[in-house]
C-alpha cells in the first residue's frame, strides 16, 4: 500500500513537471487568495476587477460566457444587477415584423461583446483578434500569475529589441512583442470604494475577476471536495477495519 501511494506521488510530480513547461519562466508570482484547497475569491477585489474590465478591457475584449445574472457571485443584489445590465444595449430579434431591434440589457443576457463578429474585431485591431476573456486564466500556461505579469509587463524596450509597427514591448509576453497596447495606467479608473488605482492594484483586481470568470464554480467545487474526501477517508478507515476483521476470521479458521 505504501508503495502504491509512493508511485502515485511520483506520478503526480511527474505529471506536474510535464505540464509545467510553458511560459511563465520569469513572471511575477503572487499569493492569490483563491489558490489552495480552502482559497476563496475576495469579493471587493472582484467588484473592482469588474469595474476595470468594464471601463478598460471591454472596449476590445468580449466576456461572452458570463451573464449579468452571474454577478450575484460578486456580492451584488438583484436590483444592482438589473441596473447594471440596463447600461448595455442588446440587439434582439427578429420581432413580429421580422426586424432586429435594440433594447436595454437584462440580467439573463450574456455580457455584450464589443464587436459583432470576429472579422469586425480583427478589422478594428489591425488584424489581431482580441481574445474572449471568459477562459483566459485557464487557457494560458501560468494562469492568474501569467495574466497579472502580462498586465504589469509593459516596460521600456531594451535596445537589443526592435519594436515593430503595431506591436508593443512586454517583458513577459512570449516573444516580447504584443499587439495589445498597454491597457492599464495609474488612476486609469476611479474605484468606487476609494482604493488607490495604481497599475499593480488594477492588474491584481482584474486578474481576480477574470479568474472568477474562468472558474465561477471554484468555491463550491472546493467545498464539495473537502466533504467528499472527508467522507471517503472515513469510508476507507471503516472498510479497512472491516477487512482486518474478516481476514482475521480466516486466520483463525486455517490456523
Amino acid at each position, binding site marked *: *500500500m505504501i508503495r*502504491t501511494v509512493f*508511485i*502515485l506521488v511520483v*506520478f503526480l510530480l*511527474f*505529471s*506536474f*513537471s*510535464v*505540464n509545467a*513547461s*510553458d511560459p511563465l519562466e520569469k513572471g511575477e508570482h503572487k499569493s492569490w487568495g483563491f489558490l489552495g*484547497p480552502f482559497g476563496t475569491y475576495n469579493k471587493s477585489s472582484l467588484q473592482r476587477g469588474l469595474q476595470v474590465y468594464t471601463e478598460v478591457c471591454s472596449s476590445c475584449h468580449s466576456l461572452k*460566457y458570463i451573464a449579468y445574472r*452571474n454577478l450575484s457571485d460578486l456580492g451584488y443584489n438583484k436590483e444592482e444587477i438589473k441596473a447594471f445590465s440596463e447600461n448595455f444595449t442588446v440587439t434582439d430579434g427578429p420581432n413580429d415584423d421580422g426586424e432586429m431591434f435594440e433594447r436595454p440589457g437584462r440580467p439573463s443576457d450574456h455580457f455584450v461583446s464589443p464587436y459583432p463578429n470576429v472579422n469586425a474585431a480583427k478589422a478594428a485591431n489591425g488584424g489581431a483578434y482580441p*481574445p474572449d476573456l*471568459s*477562459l483566459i486564466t*485557464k*487557457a*494560458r*500556461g501560468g*494562469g492568474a500569475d501569467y495574466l497579472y505579469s502580462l498586465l504589469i509587463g509593459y516596460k521600456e524596450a531594451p535596445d537589443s529589441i526592435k519594436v515593430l509597427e503595431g506591436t508593443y514591448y512586454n517583458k513577459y509576453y512570449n516573444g516580447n512583442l504584443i499587439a495589445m497596447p498597454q491597457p492599464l495606467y495609474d488612476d486609469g479608473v476611479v474605484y468606487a470604494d476609494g482604493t488607490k488605482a495604481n497599475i499593480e492594484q488594477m492588474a491584481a483586481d482584474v486578474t481576480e475577476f477574470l479568474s472568477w470568470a*474562468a472558474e*465561477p*464554480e471554484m468555491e463550491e*467545487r*472546493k467545498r*464539495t*471536495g*473537502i466533504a*467528499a*474526501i472527508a467522507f*471517503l*477517508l472515513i*469510508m*476507507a478507515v471503516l*472498510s*479497512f477495519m*472491516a*477487512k482486518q476483521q*474478516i*481476514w*482475521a476470521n*480466516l*486466520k483463525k479458521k*486455517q490456523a
Partner: protein
Amino acid sequence: MKNSPPESQFKNPIINWIDTRLPIFTAMNETVGTEHPTPKNLNYWWNFGSLAGVVLVIMIITGIALAMNYTAHVDHAFDSVERIMRDVNGGWLIRYIHMNGASFFFIVVYIHMARNLYYGSYKAPRELLWILGVVIYLLMMATAFLGYTLPWGQMSFWGATVITNFFSVIPFVGEPIVSWLLGGYTVDNPTLNRFYALHYLLPFVIAGVILLHIVALHRFGSNNPLGIDIKSDKDMIPFHPYYTIKDFFGLSVFLAIFCVFVFFVPNILGHPDNYVPADPLSTPAHIVPEWYLSPFYAILRAVPDKLLGVLAMFGAIGILFILPWLDRSPVRSAHFRPMYKVFYWLFIINMLALGYLGVQNPEGIYLILGRTCTAWYFIHFLIVIPLLNVIEIPKALPKSISDPIFSSGSSEMGATTPRGQK
C-alpha cells in the same frame, strides 16, 4: 437431453425461482461471490482489475450525462461544453469527473499491466487473457483520443489532425483512408460527428471485451504473487467476502485520491490550449498528446522516417500481443527471477522516460534520449526477454502457496506482498 438441470439452492424463493430459469445469480456468485475460489495470497496490486471496471462504469455514467448536454457541431461544441461547466446543474462536476476519469482509467490500467508484467501473469495458460487485455487497452486509447476531440479546443483539433495523418503513410490507400476517416479532406464538422458517434460506441465494445476477459480469467483463475499453480483447496479462499472487502477498501482509497484531482486540480493533467476554441488557421506552438499516449508519441518522433515512425509506434503496441511467446521462462513471478526483476524496473523507468520525452520538443538531447529509450523498448522485448530465458537461473520455487506462509510462521495472513521483493 437427459436430465433437466437441478433446482437452484438459494434461500430466497424469488431469487431461487429466477435463478433456476435464468442462472444470473449463480453467475454472479461464481464471478465475485462465495463460489469463486481465489488464491489467498493476492496483494494489493491485484485490486486494479476490479478498480478498472469501476472506473469504466463511472466513465459511462458521466459520459451519458454529458452527451445529454453536448452539441456535436463545430460551431457549438466548445460553447456547449462551457454551458455544461457553467449552467448545467452539477455540470462542472460531471465533466471534471469524466475528464480526469480518463486519465485515472489509464493510471489504473497501467498499474494493472505493470503488475501483470512483474508477476508473469501473461504466461501459459493465460495468454488469451493477456491478449484480450491488450485489445481493451487499444480500444481505450482509441476511445480517449476520440473523446479528446469533442470539446473542440485547439489541442482537440490539432491532435485529431496529427493522429489521423498517421494513416496517410500507408502506401497507395493511405490518402483515401484518411479522407474516409475524416469524412472530408480536413478535420471538420463531419469528423466531429463521426468521432462523437464512435466515442459513444466504443465504451460498450470495451465492456463486451471485458466480459470475454473475465470469462478467460475464470478459466484458470487469478495468477498470484508467487506465480505458482494452485496445488490444493488450502491455497484458495472464496472471493466473497475476502476480496470484495479488500477491493472495497482499495476503491475508497482510490476515490479519495481521484477526488483530489477532480475537486482541487481538475485541469492539471490537461493542456491550457484546449480552453482556446479550435482555429484551423492557427497552429499551436507545440502539439502534444495527452500524457497517457505520450510514450508512443515519443517512439513515433524518435524515428526520422514517417512511415517507419508510424510502424514503430504501432509495433510498440503490437509487440505486446506476442509477449507470451517471447518470454519462454517457465517461472512466472519476478520474485524468483533475479535478472528479470532488474530489467523489469529498467523497463518501467524507460517507459516513464518515454512519457516525459513525448511532451518535449524532439531536439538536441531530447531527441538523442528519445531514440535511446525507443531502442531500449524494443531491445527489452526482442532481445533481453528471450535471452533471459536462456541465461537466467531462477530461484527455487515454494511447493505451494500455503507452504511459505505457514513455514515462516508469519503473523501476517496471505494478502501480504512476498517478502524480499523490492
